[in-house]
């Protein structure tokens, strides 16, 4: 579902869904962002892979949330004193809220970088700057090519007995020599690439480029929905329905009809593209049981 969308749509959708809660200062919205972000993870990876990432995120969360109270001392509820300075509950919770937000957005961006494959990035970048897109596609080719070359170069050196006797200093010297030779070769090789690019018509004025992604009507729908969500939530945030005060004491905003509606809208919109995946998985599960 998501991988078939136009790259511009993917970009706008992910940015809207992940960044809107980041503009608020409400722990509830940040928590929703975190939850929907982790649901989104399940559409492209399995539980094992996600569990691997969990310790990193917990560490990240703890560092950010504990960071704040050591530098901010203006909460009213003092837990204890560190070197004569107040360590307040409010500052701790504010830090935890920030950490929640950063973690949630981080999860969304992991999914974004999975769905924005290199060809999609190139297409998006190419509309801004064709030159940069050319460089990006060259780099994508160069890195695997050159790393293969350097590996075979190292093998040759070892075969010829020029790699040293295995001591550290000799190895470093041999690697330096390999790097120097590789550098000369790579620069020289890039000139060959340039010549063949010219021969094949790079820089000719009248030309068209082939694009594999098409802009479908569903893309327009998703983009329109993103903008509507952004406008709606922006208005609600601007009215202060989600404003949480931390200092000097915590004042959570009252839940009103509008805030509940906007939370529901946010949840629905951020999960709408994952639905397809889960329905498919559900039916696949039943088919396996029947057969």
């Amino acid at each position: 579902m998501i991988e078939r969308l136009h790259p511009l749509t993917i970009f706008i959708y992910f940015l809207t869904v992940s960044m809107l809660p980041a503009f608020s200062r409400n722990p509830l919205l940040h928590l929703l962002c975190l939850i929907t972000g982790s649901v989104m993870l399940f559409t492209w990876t399995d539980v094992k892979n996600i569990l691997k990432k969990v310790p990193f995120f917990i560490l990240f969360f703890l560092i950010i949330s504990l960071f704040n109270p050591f530098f901010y001392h203006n909460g009213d509820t003092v837990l204890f004193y560190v070197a004569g300075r107040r360590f307040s509950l409010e500052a701790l919770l504010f830090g935890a809220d920030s950490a929640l937000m950063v973690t949630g957005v981080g999860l969304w961006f992991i999914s974004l970088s999975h769905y924005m494959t290199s060809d999609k990035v190139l297409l998006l970048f190419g509309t801004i700057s064709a030159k940069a897109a050319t460089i990006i596609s060259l780099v994508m080719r160069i890195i695997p090519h050159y790393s293969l070359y350097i590996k075979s170069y190292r093998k040759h050196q070892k075969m010829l007995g020029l790699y040293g006797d295995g001591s550290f200093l000799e190895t470093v010297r041999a690697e330096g020599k390999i790097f120097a030779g590789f550098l000369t070769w790579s620069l020289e090789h890039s000139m060959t690439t340039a010549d063949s690019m010219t021969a094949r018509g790079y820089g000719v004025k009248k030309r068209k480029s082939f694009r594999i992604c098409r802009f479908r009507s569903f893309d327009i729908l998703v983009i329109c929905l993103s903008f509507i969500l952004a406008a709606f939530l922006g208005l609600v945030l601007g009215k202060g329905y989600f404003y949480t005060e931390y200092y000097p004491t915590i004042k959570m905003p009252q839940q009103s009809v509008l805030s509940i509606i906007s939370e529901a809208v946010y949840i629905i919109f951020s999960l709408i593209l994952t639905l397809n995946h889960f329905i498919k998985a559900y039916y696949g599960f039943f088919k396996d049981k029947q057969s």
Partner: protein
Amino acid sequence: MIFERYYILISLILIAGSLALVFARLDKRRTGVRRITLIAVMTALSIVGRFIFASLPAFKPVSAIVILTGVYLGGEAGFLVGSLSAFLSNFYFGQGPWTPFQMTALGIIGLLAGIFFQKRSFKSTVFRRIIISIYAAVSGVFYSLFLDTWTMIWTYGSLNGPGYLAAVLAAVPYTALYVVSNVSFFILLDIPFGKRLGRIITKYKI
């Protein structure tokens, strides 16, 4: 106040928009094919450098290679190598809202290196190398401070002094590592890169 954390929105829009404008402007300039492939090679080298030193935090040859590109190939090339290597290597190291900030910081480092130090002859004197090393050290500090601005805006949602100070203080070891790695990689790589780039540039008339 429309948003409670509107600084994030405004700073992101400003920085991404200005980056897009710079890229669109660079697209108008005519660049030879050979220069483009050279830029691609330098970008690839800096990305591979970041991969090789991935296990060491902040000790990366990226800025040094960006500065070298700026010095030998000019400001435009420096900007492109800096911003694109930040952009592309982040596909491995984690893309996020900080990407435009990293792109801008590295791009500015390359651009200024080109503006200040580009010259036609490729024989580096000791004095010149010392001056560029100082620039490399300053650029490490600049990079760290620039990204700390982002850290402050991102975690606090506004501009505030103590928050910035906290971010800067927390990043002091990183800043020191940036400075050390920039200077050492610059000194290490200047002669081999300068010799070979000079040869290529005179041989192929780039």
